[in-house]
């Protein structure tokens, strides 16, 4: 599969996530759109790792089994960080709901005054 297809797919998913962050006011939905953006980046990294593997095999240099697997480990670490981020972020949202009885992010502008 040409790599351009994966680039377009991942960019479209990322931009849907960006639009979701901009147009939704519920803090949980905004958080889910951030997860969507993280996942599109993961998809791009895996596609590039397979492209790198194919390129270095085609050039015939350094045919080792492990070429390109760094990117997949980066994806693994991104997932680890995302899981930690979700646990802390949802705790913050629950705390906010307990204080203002809403998840509307427009209630978070109190620092302005």
């Amino acid at each position: 599969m040409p790599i351009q297809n994966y680039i377009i797919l991942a960019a479209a998913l990322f931009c849907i996530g960006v639009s979701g962050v901009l147009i939704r006011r519920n803090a949980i939905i905004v958080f889910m759109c951030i997860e969507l953006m993280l996942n599109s980046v993961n998809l791009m990294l895996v596609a590039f790792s397979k492209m790198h593997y194919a390129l270095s095999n085609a050039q015939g240099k350094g045919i080792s089994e492990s070429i390109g697997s760094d990117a997949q480990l980066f994806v693994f670490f991104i997932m680890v960080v995302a899981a930690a981020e979700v646990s802390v972020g949802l705790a913050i949202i629950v705390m906010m709901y307990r204080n203002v009885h809403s998840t509307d992010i427009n209630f978070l502008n109190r620092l302005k005054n």
Partner: protein
Amino acid sequence: MTATEILFWFLSALALFSALMVVISKNPVHSVLWLIVVFFSISGHYILLNAQFIAIVNLIVYAGAIMVLFLFVIMLMNLNANTEPQRNSLVRLAGVVAGGLLLTVMISALRSANEITNSKATMSEGDIGLIQNLGKILFTQYVVPFELSSVLFLSAMVGAVVIGKKE
């Protein structure tokens, strides 16, 4: 058109449609369910790319753990379509236009880059995504980041408990 291509286009269409539905749907529970569909289709893409370890981890961590956490929080707060705050239509239009412009810029910048013209992602060959290879590298080259991520998890757990605790 081979079976791989058909699967690729089907999974791409499914991912894009359900990502749109995540943003569009009024009920937060429906958004979570559509996001689970997105994660399943992205896992399908990983399997097509023969990255089996990442596919399984994606299913277990995202579709299994994180989405259940989201559902718990939404049901705990009793959110539904009636309590959903809405932005006015001008801000919505601005958000959609901003996202579309970003998409245009990214695609036009990346489409004709020198490094990626005529390069393909190998679909079903190569065993770099298998758990044997990834495990070997994870526990030799990347053992320090692996241990650091366990410290990160511990601090995230402590942080979540401290933040969520009643005063």
